[in-house]
């Protein structure tokens, strides 16, 4: 049981942190591991959404979160943070993006800055688990289905039934009206010129109402 290191203050990550870091066995040892992760983090910052194998995505996610949280916390005038950004972003123009675009974007976030979604693996093909890693607030369309409407929810079922009943009632009323007009026509043979106009009006009314209800 040793003491916690107190020389540097860090913000708490908003994602779950794995209890152990993955090794990513590598001929170059731990340095090669960091090199791999560095490429992934750079790609994430550059493209804002990438598809890759799940273990690498899960590991790179933590590093990207740490990089962004440090950028927010210390800003671009802090020497060690700048060194970190210089190491972790292989393409140097992305350092500007980190401090000028991403740090202001995530300044007031209470949730994680990245999103990790499991992706389907190609079949037939390699059996590696796939994932999509993306920055929040990216310009691409959402990957998740829109969960705001579900017709199987009880209140939606009831509303649907109520709509049906209302429509049936309206149709019955209109039919009754048409019947009334027709009987009037049958009685009044002299005023034949008015009848087609009336019919047209009724038909129009029916169309209007049906379209409104559908809307």
């Amino acid at each position, binding site marked *: 049981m040793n*003491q*916690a*290191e*107190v020389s540097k*203050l860090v913000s*708490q990550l908003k994602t779950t*942190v794995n*209890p152990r870091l993955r090794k990513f066995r590598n001929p170059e040892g*731990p340095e090669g591991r960091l090199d791999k992760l560095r490429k992934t983090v750079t790609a994430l910052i550059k493209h804002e959404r990438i598809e890759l194998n799940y273990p690498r995505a899960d590991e790179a996610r933590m590093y990207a979160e*740490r990089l962004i949280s440090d950028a927010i916390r210390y800003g671009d005038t802090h020497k060690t943070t700048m060194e970190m950004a210089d190491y972790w972003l292989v393409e140097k123009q992305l350092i500007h993006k980190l401090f000028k675009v991403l740090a202001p974007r995530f300044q007031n976030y209470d949730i994680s800055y990245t999103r990790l979604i499991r992706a389907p693996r190609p079949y037939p093909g390699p059996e590696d688990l796939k994932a999509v890693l993306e920055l929040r607030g990216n310009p691409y369309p959402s990957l998740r289905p829109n969960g705001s409407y579900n017709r199987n929810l009880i209140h939606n079922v009831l509303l649907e039934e109520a709509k049906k009943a209302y429509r049936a009632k309206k149709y019955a009323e209109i039919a009754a009206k048409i019947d009334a007009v027709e009987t009037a026509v049958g009685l009044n043979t002299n005023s034949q010129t008015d009848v087609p106009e009336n019919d047209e009006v009724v038909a129009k009314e029916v169309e209007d109402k049906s379209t409104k209800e559908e809307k």
Partner: protein
Amino acid sequence: MLSIFSKRPCIKCFSETSKILLRCSSQTATSTIERNKDQLKRQIVEYRHVYPEFLPDPKIEYRNLIREKLERADMVARRTQVDIPEFYVGSILAVTSSDRHNPEKPHRFVGICIKREYCGLRASFIVRNMIDHQGIEIMYNMYDPTIHKVEVLRLEKRLDDELLYLRDALPEYSTFDSNMDAEILPEGTPVPINPIKVKLKPRPWLERWERKNLKGIEELDLPERFFKRAKELEKPWEKYDLMKEYMRTIPEEEQIEIFSEVQAELHKLEVQRKKMKRKRVIVKPSKLA
């Protein structure tokens, strides 16, 4: 009627101005509250240097929130009984403790603190001194009930976090007079850092100091191959491993939570200690006279 009409706008004006005033006052109040909060936060975060043993071991398998909380309560309770002042690795301490082999006479040991380790109730520190040309080190458990008193004779830091290399240094660097008087620092001064560079004895050593990247030792007189090997074994990428760094520390939010729990008690103890110090300062000249 006219009078009423004439009054109305006045009332409106007043109400509007009062609203603005209220808003202003509320804004200033909130800003002052926020400033106070920030100050308190900064103060609390500074506690991590003074009371590092209150922070738990960040290793996830050793974490247990309930045990940590209970230990903290016990530590504060012990601190109300025994005054454990602020000290660092490199400070010179005098520790008075009772010896079970000689229960009548408390034992006082003066020396330099060369290491602080462990956290919670297990927190300990090692004090080193040369006595009769023999290096003596005693490891004290900080919350041991046999400890009577811990005095800080000289409050300072060294360039390194551990001074274990004093074991292989020349004896004059770890020799301290056991009748030394306490040096009192003026209030509010930052803890001074002693930039002394220690000269090591020739090999053989207890550890390979050339590989430890130490700042507090003089240049080593070693053959070239030692430095070559040290260079080979360096891990310069490790400082870029953000997650390893994260897993070695406790995040700020958690630290604030931990220290705000014990802050009131610790602050009370600090105030008490300051009062005692002032008393001592006044008493001294009367003794001399």
